[in-house]
């Protein structure tokens, strides 16, 4: 009572202040001590191991992010032995037993990258620094994936990229700690060019609309190179901002450009919007150079096809995976995903789910969470039974080599999910390419202490 009555004396304030200053002086020492106690970043010492999932829950790729989140949660369930086990029984490597990873139960943290590099890195840092995540996975934009991959390399945490299709992810910007299961734009070009040549002829004039970032740039380049190699001509390539919403100002000039094919290097909501608007402008009913005008969407997903509705019918594109594939693994994954969420998985769900399993499997095979060993277990790993046929994690650039699907929008879909049909499976030997055509270096293996 007397204390309150007299109020705070200067002496008391100083005393408390000094205590605080001393406290804050000691605090950093405690942190560094904690950091030295572990031999590598976020070594899981308890009975759980934490994985970090960063997804675009808002922004231009939000639909994809939502499906990605479903897939990650399913993967965690299966790793912990809950649910029907999903792909664990079909996976060619049999070390995963559904008892977590190395006997530790799998916990997870999630974050929103807002389809922005900054936000993605913030979320990943939170997971690494606060939540002790031993692995980061996710992203549906190559820009975000490349930014997060660079951060993970710095921090010494393995990054299992989600949907990223830019050549740069495993090309110019490849990192020792980053791995990509998804295919890339170069492979899309190799796969789709012959199909386009057969369907539309070898003397077409193409007009590109391109998302203005790493993925758009490399896809434009790859599709351009592949189509020009078979005789097509490129009239123009116009860059559009990501998340533009309205593409009419970009589509109008196409009409009088002398082009007879429009190639949309757009993904997510951008792809849905630009395709729908191009069809509404009547591009597909037009004739140009004496031929029917055509539209191509080189990278397409179920989610985009559902969003585009009528507009997707007959449109060609490429995909990493489709839920209607008839192999045992694809069936098992679709059943497992459908039972939990009441809808078939999209390609981003499959690649994200597989990435989580591949990481867990690599840790089991390495027998340790020590990142350099896990990286060596993933490099050059040959596996099957994940829905993409026999697959290789190439050691030179951490790119998975596997089949690529050329798909087309179905004319008469039987259900709302039955929107794409596979017209051709392009074999792994065709989709293969020399890793050295892209510059960039993987960098060192050295384990870091969270930077």
């Amino acid at each position, binding site marked *: 009572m007397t204390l309150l009555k007299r109020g705070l004396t200067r002496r008391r304030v100083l005393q408390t*202040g000094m205590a*605080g*200053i001393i*406290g*804050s002086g000691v*605090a*950093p020492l405690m*942190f*560094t001590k904690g*950091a030295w106690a572990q031999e590598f970043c976020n070594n899981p010492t308890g009975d759980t191991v934490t994985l970090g999932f960063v997804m675009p*829950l*808002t922004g231009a790729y*939000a639909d994809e992010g939502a499906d990605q989140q479903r897939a990650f949660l399913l993967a965690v369930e299966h790793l912990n032995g809950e649910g029907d086990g999903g792909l664990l029984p079909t996976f060619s490597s049999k070390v995963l037993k559904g008892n977590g990873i190395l006997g530790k139960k799998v916990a*997870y*943290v*999630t*974050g*929103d990258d807002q389809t*922005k*590099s*900054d*936000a993605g*890195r*913030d*979320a990943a*840092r*939170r*997971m*690494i*620094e*606060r939540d002790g995540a031993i692995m980061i996975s996710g992203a549906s934009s*190559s*820009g975000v994936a*490349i*930014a997060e991959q*660079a*951060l993970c*390399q*710095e921090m010494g945490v393995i990054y299992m990229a989600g949907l990223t299709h830019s050549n*740069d992810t495993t090309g110019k*910007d490849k990192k020792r700690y980053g791995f990509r299961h998804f295919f890339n734009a170069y492979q899309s070009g190799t796969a789709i060019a012959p199909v386009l040549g057969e369907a539309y002829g070898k003397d077409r004039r193409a007009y590109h609309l391109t*998302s*203005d*970032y*790493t993925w758009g740039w490399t896809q434009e380049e790859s599709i351009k190179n592949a189509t020009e190699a078979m005789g097509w001509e490129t009239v123009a390539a116009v*860059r559009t*901002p*990501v998340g533009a919403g309205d593409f009419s100002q970009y589509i109008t000039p196409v009409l009088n450009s002398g082009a007879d094919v429009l190639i949309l290097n757009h993904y997510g909501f951008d792809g849905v919007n630009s395709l729908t608007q191009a069809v509404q402008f009547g591009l597909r009913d037009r004739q140009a150079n004496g031929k029917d005008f055509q539209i191509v969407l080189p990278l397409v997903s179920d989610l985009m096809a559902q969003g585009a509705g009528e507009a997707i019918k007959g449109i060609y594109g490429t995909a990493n995976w489709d839920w209607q594939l008839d192999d045992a693994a694809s069936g098992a994954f679709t059943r497992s995903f459908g039972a939990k969420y009441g809808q078939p998985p999209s390609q981003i769900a499959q690649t994200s789910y597989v990435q989580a399993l591949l990481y867990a499997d690599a840790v089991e095979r390495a027998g340790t969470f020590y990142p350099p060993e896990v990286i060596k277990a993933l490099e050059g790993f040959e596996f099957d039974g994940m829905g993409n046929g026999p697959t290789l994690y190439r050691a030179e650039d951490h790119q998975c080599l596997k089949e690529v699907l050329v798909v087309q929008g179905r004319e008469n879909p039987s259900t709302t999910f039955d929107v794409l049909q596979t017209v051709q499976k392009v074999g792994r030997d065709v989709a293969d390419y020399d890793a050295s055509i892209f510059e960039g*270096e993987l*960098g*060192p293996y*050295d384990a870091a202490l*969270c*930077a």
Partner: protein
Amino acid sequence: MNIFYLPRRDAITLAVFALVVLTMPIWLVPFGAAYPGLMQKFAIFAIFAVGYNVLFGLTGYLSFGHAAFLGVGSYTAVWTFKLMTMNVIPAMIFAVIVSGLFALAIGFVSLRRSGIYFSILTLAFAQMCYNLAYSVLTPITNGETALQLTINDPRVLDLMFSERGAGLPSPSLLGQGMSGIEAFYVVAVVLLIAFYIAQKIFVSPFGMMLRAIKSNQTRMHYTGFNTRPYALTAFVISGMYAGLAGSLLAATDPLAGAERMQWTASGEVVLMTILGGVGTLIGPVIGAWLIKYFENIFSGFNDAMLHHTFSWLPQGAQDVVVAITSKFVGEGWQLSLGLIFVLVVVFLPGGVMEGIRRFSSIFRNRREPGPTGALKTSPAE
């Protein structure tokens, strides 16, 4: 008179503020925010908000384009890393200079108008910077992919003294690495210096002039003052603060993306200032912390965590509570932020600082009731 002199009241504020900032790693633990990445953001955006408040709080000019200076600062800093050296001090100096020049150019044009026209002009300029960064200037800004360091950057100054390493270099301060908790302390010290300078501005005759601009610019004109140079100086100073914050963002995480310049980022600093309390020194800082906390912590909540939090409830009730609360966390974090913003603006127009003032005045009145009637409002005659 000593040029570092601060009035006693301000000196105490600075001391308390320093204590609060430097002990963040301790008192943020219960909030789940005591990790270096977020604490760095807290300090950096506090600098941004303090600088913004020099303009908005003192002169009343509502700029809707301050994120442009933040972005310019970041790009300058990353380019300094790429071309010259990984040391953060040149990066900070260049960022402040370049963003100051930008602010001079933009302010020179925009300050010809006041009120809503000024806001729209700054918004337009910022949006122009953003769009340029995305389109014409992509060779400099690397567009959506964001400007990043590469192994083969020139780094002229660094490579004169040492060999190229195997991995990517990281920013350093005089040889000391800028990562984790050390980087937080560096940024925190910069924040304290920036805060001190803002305090000096607030109590200086120059600050008084800025306040006069806010209260009645026409009267200033009539008394023979040309107000524009003062307003322009304030604009440039706050632009330099933003550039400094931008360079620190790049120093703690060497990457510069154009989305830092988007109008939503400019709006965010306005929100920070209003949420905390316009025209007060501490208010914008509190606002910045609140918003960054929401953005980073609330967006990371997911259903599993909610179920864990409410596990003490019976199963049925738990599901209902989780279903409702999950709309306000995770991707819905902006919803809860919006709600708080509406509540603050409606009930506490002076921001969080007004809340604190009201709260403390309750106690003060109870202890020593003031002269009767002096504090009471009464209708005018």
